[in-house]
């Protein structure tokens, strides 16, 4: 009896060690991120996002091909005009936030407690949804803009204090951006759970106007 009792004890310990070893291995394996570990729902979202980005790239490639062909022709005939350069300059001024811009988009009103990290997250979400230009109150958000805490519940954008209530305006495809921020589980829904006493209002706008970067 002592023999079999000892063997069973050894076997039980070994079994336990086996379980522990696998658990440890698996807990480290949590870190090895790969697409294979994603859920079908996440993969579907990733695919939709990749498809959108690729579609935007294809549109721009098509546009550029036309412009390259036109520019090559005009140079070879000695008739190169400034039109192509001016068109590019206009596009770059919008992209670099150097010009005041107009266009459709959305407006997010925030009335109540809010902070600079949440504002940075909102700007990131708007950019991800396709915003081409963003302004908070009367300040344009630029390519190198940064957020910091402000005094007395305010926040700072590029070192300038912005007190609430805040109005964040984003020019871009209004329907797409509106759905992106207001969807169930979206950023505004999350804010409403975190900043319970703050009022958030999102509206689609047919004509917004944003100032240039200062």
């Amino acid at each position, binding site marked *: 009896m*002592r*023999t079999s009792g000892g*063997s069973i004890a*050894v*076997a*039980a310990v*070994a*079994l336990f*060690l*086996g*379980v522990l070893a*696998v*658990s440890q291995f*698996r*807990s*480290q394996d949590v*870190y090895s*991120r790969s*697409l*294979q*570990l*994603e*859920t*079908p729902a*996440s*993969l579907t979202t*990733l*695919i939709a996002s*990749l498809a959108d*980005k690729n579609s935007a*790239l294809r*549109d*721009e*490639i098509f546009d*550029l*091909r036309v412009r*390259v062909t036109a*520019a090559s022709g005009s*140079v070879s005939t000695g008739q*190169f005009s*400034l039109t192509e*350069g001016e068109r590019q300059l206009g*596009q*770059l001024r*919008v*992209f*670099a936030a150097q010009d005041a*811009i*107009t266009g459709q*988009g959305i407006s997010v009103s925030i009335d109540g407690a809010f902070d600079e*990290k949440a504002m*940075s*997250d909102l700007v*990131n979400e708007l*950019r991800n949804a396709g915003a*081409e230009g963003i302004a908070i109150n009367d300040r344009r958000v*630029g*390519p190198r*803009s940064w957020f910091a805490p402000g005094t007395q519940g305010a926040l700072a954008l590029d070192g300038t204090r912005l007190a609430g209530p805040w109005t964040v305006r984003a*020019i871009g495809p209004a329907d797409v951006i509106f759905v992106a921020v207001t969807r169930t589980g979206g950023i505004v829904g999350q804010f409403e759970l975190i900043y319970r006493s703050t009022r958030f209002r999102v509206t689609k706008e047919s004509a917004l106007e944003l100032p240039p970067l200062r």
Partner: protein
Amino acid sequence: MAHVTPVQRQHLANGLALLIPALLFGFLVSAQWQTQLERSSLAVRYNAPLTEAAQSLQNEQNALKAQLAELRKQLDSIQANASTQTDASRSLQARIDDLKARAGLTAVAGDGVIISLDDAKQTAVNAKDVDKSICHATDLTDIVNTAWRGGAQAVAINDERIVGTSSVYCVGSTIMVNGTLMSPPFQIVVIGRQDQLLGAFEDPAQLRDIKQRSEVHGLGFRVSRASQLRAPEYNGALNVRAAQPK
């Protein structure tokens, strides 16, 4: 020294003979149980084709970005030749070049700092702490925010240049920067005045959460001075469609 009798030796042999199968059984039971927990039947059925589709789209995106870069180069070359024709075209070209540099459409080289960010590797963690041990999209946006605050001239995450329309997006545990799939480790190249940048990153009030998770939960986070860094040009779409200059 204790004397081992033949009977005791036999007991030991019996115990050892059970040890290996028991260990193997433990491995199998545990692995099977955890695998069943993690992978639903839906995941088993659909993950392979969905993963393949995502990878295929990412490969397509890389090819599209290369095509776009080539076309931009061709247009630049045509304009550079044409800009020698008149004073007006020369002046226009100078303004275009200046704006491209400001917008992140030209590569930048110089000194600065490199920030390494990675999921914890060595620390044994409880399931509830896993979240604190891995990199999140918000960690990257916080680092980029600190870089701009510290006076950065250019920032790139794993060779994706950060521009005015860049976003860092997280789906499941996969992070996308400029629409490109990424996973840790992340290397963030920040070009600018080193002392000023280091001052910003070493400020205890900055990146508090990341620093605390690095100390307590083993999140990989390191800021180091570096020379001759390169931030590549932005190679995505400019996507100026709805916005019109006023």
